[in-house]
């Protein structure tokens, strides 16, 4: 079974803090994704990575950055957290284009 894990299920941070969300997959997948999910808006793509050290902006990259130093790990960074970044963050991975994305359990982030 594909396993995608996220470092935290719940996280509470203060405005202005630097926040790291970690995602690890164990199936040697090439592609990895970060989404945020908000009520009524569905899933929106923040960033994705086709391979190690490669990254591409998604639909809503503002306020976020990413890092992919190793194939199995994709990190989402909030340089200076703001209250409008309170959301559910979901990581996904897949072997390549046209293949199924597998999702982690999500991290619910609250920024106070």
């Amino acid at each position, binding site marked *: 079974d594909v396993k*995608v894990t996220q470092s935290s*299920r719940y996280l509470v941070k203060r405005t202005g803090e630097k926040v790291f969300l970690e995602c690890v997959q164990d199936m040697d997948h090439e592609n990895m994704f970060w*989404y945020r999910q908000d009520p*009524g*808006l*569905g*899933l*929106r*793509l923040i960033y994705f990575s086709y391979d190690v050290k490669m990254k591409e902006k998604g*639909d809503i990259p503002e306020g976020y950055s990413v890092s992919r130093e190793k194939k199995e790990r994709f990190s989402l960074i909030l340089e200076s957290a703001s209250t409008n970044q309170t959301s559910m963050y*979901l990581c*996904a991975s897949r072997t390549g284009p*046209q293949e*199924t*994305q*597998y*999702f*982690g*359990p*999500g991290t*619910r982030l609250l920024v106070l």
Partner: protein
Amino acid sequence: LAKTTQPISMDSYEGQEVNITCSHNNIATNDYITWYQQFPSQGPRFIIQGYKTKVTNEVASLFIPADRKSSTLSLPRVSLSDTAVYYCLVGLMISGYNKLIFGAGTRLAVHP
């Protein structure tokens, strides 16, 4: 604005067949259509994927007309445990670029 469109919510009863349609007018030529199921506080879980005509697996069927501008997820005999949010995921051509877009989700409630 190119996007996918799904009904916001649906209600059904145990044992009935449920059909959920997703409209995607600007689907990219080579992209598949994928459906996911999501329970509260969990990441989306893959249900079924198809390119055209009909695909069936052990849990659902997917009907895709020849023009591929829509797709219908069919759950044959729903049970209470099928109560969840269902998302379609397609690649859309937006401003000349192929972008993966999730629908906003359909909240299915199955009643006894």
